């Protein structure tokens, strides 16, 4: 085990290399630039290739090409670049091409504030492309160490599910400096819970089963299998035919290979003070969860019956955590409220859902404790907040 005081970007690069990533294409953007820089330094040392693309759209298409040729590929960006992934993300979903995408959130909309954390990409990562008829897998770490683990996990999931997987981080995770332990031996990696799946290729050309089965390898070019891969409806023959029934089979696979295999990743959450069915469940993901955990601990010592639920697997949204009747509070780094909307959908009808939004900075313990107290006492929040009923 090697220990470093380094940035999240550094940890993510090391995680990708451990996962077998040997191709990275990127475009400079704060706060994901240092990941591209780390990759440009580290990949050639391990026999991999770093390419700087002309834009983010090209960056993810370069990853598609490399993955189509059998390499494990990754790209990283922030919100303004993530929207340029819309085109290739759709292709990678439709053609079932494994790769890992990292989105480090800053303050939006548009260029917004580059060097401050934001969580405005909650829905954007669920619908990264147009057209619907697909599910997405999104993982949200809350530390540099966990970001490294989640990149390795994302490569594992992307190979098994045959699809791109997104890591949703934020500026504090990628740019922040933390104590990072990097395993060096297989035993250490196993101990840290890392899972690996090597790239295989499908013998084709009957490459498109309408099934939710895992572990179907992707199509690969250059193996002379007659493999076909296109943005059109794939059929058993791989031809462009525009038939609704065939397209429905295609969509079935894209949706249900994820929905029916939730056991692969539905253990990705963290619960604190949740064993005694607390009156108020504080829900968060990413960096703000670290403040939430502290605030909930303090609230407990003050006698408030509060628990903390941190989501790591964001999409498909883990509805199973919201079945119990309780008060729920979403703490997220945006002012419009995104996670809170999904919670509102997931809770039972007689549960209350509240919203605490801050952007560009983390919440303070003081503000959170005050909010918990008011919600528990059924008092109106000092912040105008999220008034779903009135909305």
């Amino acid at each position, binding site marked *: 085990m090697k220990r470093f005081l380094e940035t999240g970007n550094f940890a993510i690069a090391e995680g990708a290399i451990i996962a077998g990533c040997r191709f990275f294409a990127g475009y400079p953007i704060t706060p994901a630039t240092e990941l591209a820089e780390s990759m440009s330094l580290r990949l050639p040392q391990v026999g991999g290739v770093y390419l700087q693309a002309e834009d983010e759209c090209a960056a993810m298409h370069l990853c598609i090409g490399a993955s189509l040729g059998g390499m494990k590929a990754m790209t990283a960006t922030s919100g303004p670049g993530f929207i340029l992934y819309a085109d290739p993300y759709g*292709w990678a979903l439709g053609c079932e091409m494994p790769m890992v995408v990292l989105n480090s959130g800053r303050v939006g909309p548009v260029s917004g504030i580059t060097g401050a954390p934001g969580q405005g990409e909650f829905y954007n990562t669920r619908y990264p492309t147009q057209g619907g008829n697909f599910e997405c897998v999104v993982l949200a770490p809350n530390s540099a160490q966990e970001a490294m683990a989640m990149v390795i996990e994302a490569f594992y999931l992307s190979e098994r599910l045959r699809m791109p997987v997104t890591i949703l981080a934020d500026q504090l995770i990628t740019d922040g400096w933390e104590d990072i332990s990097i395993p060096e031996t297989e035993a250490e990696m196993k101990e840290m819970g890392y899972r690996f799946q090597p790239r295989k290729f499908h013998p084709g050309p009957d490459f498109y089963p309408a099934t939710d089965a895992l572990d179907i390898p992707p199509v690969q070019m250059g193996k002379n299998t007659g493999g076909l891969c296109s943005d059109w409806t794939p059929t058993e023959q791989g031809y*462009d035919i525009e038939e609704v029934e065939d397209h429905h089979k295609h969509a079935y696979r894209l949706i249900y290979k994820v929905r029916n295999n939730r056991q692969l990743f539905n253990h990705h959450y963290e619960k604190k003070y949740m064993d005694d069915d607390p009156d108020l469940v504080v829900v968060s993901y990413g960096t703000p969860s670290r403040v939430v955990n502290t605030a909930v601990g303090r609230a407990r010592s003050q006698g408030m019956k509060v628990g903390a639920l941190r989501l790591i697997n964001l999409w498909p949204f883990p509805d199973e955590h919201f079945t119990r009747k309780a008060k729920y509070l979403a703490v997220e780094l945006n002012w419009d409220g995104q996670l809170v909307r999904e919670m509102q959908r997931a809770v039972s009808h007689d549960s209350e859902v509240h919203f605490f939004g801050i952007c560009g900075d983390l919440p303070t313990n003081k503000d959170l404790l005050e909010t918990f107290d008011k919600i528990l006492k059924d008092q109106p929040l000092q912040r105008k907040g999220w008034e779903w009923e009135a909305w």
Partner: protein
Amino acid sequence: MELSASKLIEEYLRPRKIPSTACAGCGLGMNHKVVIQAFKELGLSTAEVIWGTSIGCAGRQTFATFKGDGFAGTHGRAYAIARGLRIALPPEKKIVLSVGDGDAFGIGLLHLIHAARVNADITVIVHDNLGYQSTGGQFGFTTPMGVKTDSSPYGMFEPNLMSAGMDVMHILKGAGATFLARQVVLADGFEAVASVKKAILNRGFSLVHMPHPCVTNFAMKHLGSRVPVEIFRWFKKHTAPLGQETPETIWATGIWHDASNSRPEFSELVWGATERIRRTGTL
């Protein structure tokens, strides 16, 4: 030249996709045959070529026609996909992209220029049907001046990538392409095959621009006739070999730029650098 198309089809194309879904009288089939003929004359087997396509008539009608491995990219992005694929594939595999004018010179021009910049070993065949014909016939960036289309009802007046002194070939040459040719197959098919062969043999970025007639949309709107011979005659009238242009010439055909194998190829360069850094820690 192999005069029997059926023999070529048997060897290189998927029978279920041929005859293609292109309109009767479309020039795409001639272009398609020229490319396959070049494979045959170079002795390339289906195992040695990756066939990439994109969106539009050229993409849709030629995707999955090739018996070997094939992919279709999103609109204009096949050049970025091909660059990534070039890194992952062994150098002896050829990547041939069969794309349209809107794809290459419209939405994908940025990616095309960057593929030329790095001299990636990709052969781009641009089947130019003079506009966006699969969406009904709107003008593109190579539609000749004055031509009426569904979106230029008063005639083309905006400068484009075929305007005097602004030819797309100059842009690509300046960007670093190492082989560039323009051929009109119905004017000289043998020359077209020869250019495609040279393009494939160049270990670097090659592009062959092959304008071809669209009978259904372009000819109907511009010439008022869907009789193929009308548009064929119009094409011939406006085609001349480079150096023999007349005032009527729109397409000057021949080899525009041949610097084959004069610059390091992209994937060789990248893998060479990677290998040196891996072994010695420096370039």
